[in-house]
């Protein structure tokens, strides 16, 4: 099994210290996190982590099980790049005088879909939202023109096949199955049973 990029989506309670609990699952195994983003989710009070790593599927599956084991984690999913719609946001700070003087720069910025966020006498900040290779490309292009600062956000991703977390949450809020395991209403409905 070869390594590839996986995007892990974790639904959690909003709890101080949980970021650390999740992060150490990776660092303990000496796995580098390429990108990490935390944000609210489609469900009020439920938090969403988006983590990107480069690993084999087997490792990623085990990591997700370890993440789900944490008391305050509701669910962890992992997806390959083709199973998600994703974006990263990049900001570029360049000297305004170069932008003004070099027509070429202007054309490059247009080609890369960059938008000006701030224009000051001394510098201008552009933003580009897109995939990694797109935002990377513009760094290389702008470097000869005196790129002053560059920063890129963590990845945010939407899972193409997901119906959202509302239904899943209802399932979790449903009380624990009773004493009689066989009476569980979800027992024969593989789809509805939470799986890992």
């Amino acid at each position, binding site marked *: 099994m070869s390594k590839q990029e996986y995007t892990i989506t974790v639904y959690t309670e909003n709890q101080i210290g949980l970021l650390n609990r999740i992060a150490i699952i990776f660092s303990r195994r000496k796995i580098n996190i390429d990108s990490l983003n935390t944000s609210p989710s489609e469900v009020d009070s439920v938090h969403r982590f988006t983590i990107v790593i480069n690993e084999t599927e087997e490792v990623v599956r085990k990591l997700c099980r370890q993440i789900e084991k944490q008391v305050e984690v509701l669910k962890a999913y992992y997806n390959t790049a083709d199973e998600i719609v994703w974006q990263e946001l990049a900001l570029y700070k360049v000297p305004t005088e170069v932008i003004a003087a070099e027509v070429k720069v202007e054309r490059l910025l247009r080609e890369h879909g960059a938008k000006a966020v701030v224009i000051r006498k001394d510098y201008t900040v552009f933003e580009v939202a897109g995939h990694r290779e797109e935002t990377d490309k513009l760094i290389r292009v702008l470097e000869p023109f005196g790129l002053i600062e560059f920063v890129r956000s963590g990845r945010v991703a939407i899972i193409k096949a997901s119906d959202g977390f509302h239904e899943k949450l209802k399932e979790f809020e449903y009380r624990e199955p009773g004493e009689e395991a*066989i009476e569980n209403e979800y027992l*024969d409905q593989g789809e509805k049973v939470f799986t*890992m």
Partner: protein
Amino acid sequence: METLALQKEATTVQTTTTISGSEAVLKALLAEKVDTVFGYPGGAIMPIYDALYDYNDRLKHILVRHEQGAIHAAQGYARVSGKVGVVFATSGPGATNLVTGLADAMIDSTPVVCITGQVFAHLLGTDAFQETDVINITTPVTKWNYQVTDATEIPSVLAKAFYIAGSGRPGPVVIDITKNAQLQMFEYAGYKRCEHIRSYRPKPIVRKEYIQQAAQLINGAERPFIIFGQGVVLGKAEKEFLRFVEKSGIPAAWTIMGMGAIPTDHPLAAGMLGMHGNYGPNLLTNECDVLIAIGMRFDDRVTGRLDKYAKQAKIVHLDIDPAEIDKNVKTAVPVWGDCKETLPLLTELIEQKVYPQWLQRFKDCQAKEDQKVIQNELHPAGDVMTMGEVLRNLNELTNGEAIIVTDVGQHQMVACRYAKMNNTRSNVTSGGLGTMGFALPAAIGAAYGDPSRTTVAIIGDGGFQMTLQELGTIMQFKPNVKIMILNNQFLGMVRQWQELFHQRRYSFVDITSPDFVQVAKGFGIPGQSVSDRKDLRSALETMINADGSYLLEVMVGKENNVFPMVPQGRGVAEIVLGSDEV
């Protein structure tokens, strides 16, 4: 309507009382039916200790001599009683001294709730006196932890703590309470036990199709083999497990943590697995056709080299923790769930069977091990005493009814190889973490966990010196602990490895010891040292029959080795019976 609302308000007012956060902590413990707390006071937990002054009649507090002793005692208590162990410690060094015990409880799934004091909330992050970041230090070694800075949170947080520590796959929980929260007065509306946390699923839902698949595999097997771990004990499923074993007729071997879940002399008991386990269970792991793993986690000390482990077998894995399924060993059928639920379902679907030929294989292996190892260990021909013969004599005196607490090293392996156990919750040892110094404090806790049984702590000369200050706890509170030091004047297990794998380069394994009997005497504990076989039996009798605690030192062979052994990096079938085969 208005009057009704007013009346209602009046009744609610009557049901709340104003109490301090500290008192709320103690009320929570009582509501959770805690009877014993192991702890050590200090600046940041003084308000709780002040409240304890008034609760002393309802809550026993055992003052240990080091916080590590407190948590190991709580572990011993939990392992023997099946209840949650409770620890009090102060901030800073008090809390950091718990870390080894937390790691131990984490890896051996022991339910423990530690309540640590913390500096005032307004001082957090200022490097205040005895301030340390307890939450972040303990995160990797706790199932859950939480810092309380407001007293109103205390009842619900402690309810969560007890629920999380004791449910599902148990584990340690740390609740760090700032001093202001301990002092804060608030409206207390009573304690409500926690039974559900929406993001926490202690038991995966049992899936019938997997039970059916597992039963099918078992029914079709010719050489099935059961290996079980502490999950059977933690799930309080010993009866369900015994019925499964007896109906299936399948030989069952235990991991060190599973020992005692069925009586060690049961006709289908196949012995111990692992690096120093029995010959048959290790060898035949690689000959069985269906391997049924129950409540165990395929630790490397059990599996040896993974790519040579049970490759021929279809593996059925029953575990409450889904993260354990396929973690180390690929399973054919994963049976998620609490084995107390899954085992009866499985037992119902399997056929009653016997495997005479297959069992004979185990007996043949046992005979070979008897002849090459066990005979010499239990009945040595030479003058030098062996650890095995001490265990044999102990078995004869306790009839397998004692709680055996062991430390870590050669004596631990020998004790677990030869001790007889008729009852569950008889084996208390540091299996996963291998914490030297565990046994003495754990035995103190075990003695409180079940005072009706004899607790014997078997400890090496090295490990005893790591926590011997807990003799002070025994001196003061008088739990009944029989301390048996098997002294080989070496750090024996490391020495054994140096002998076998490092060309006898004995690097810092030669450890000198104080006069242990004199040390015990200093703590008011009677004892004796035995170096001659003829004195062994009567010395053991004196120890067992002593009124209270007693220390017996037995001088055993200096360079005896523990065999059989699966050398590191080899497969289980490459188990060796003596140093000539290494």
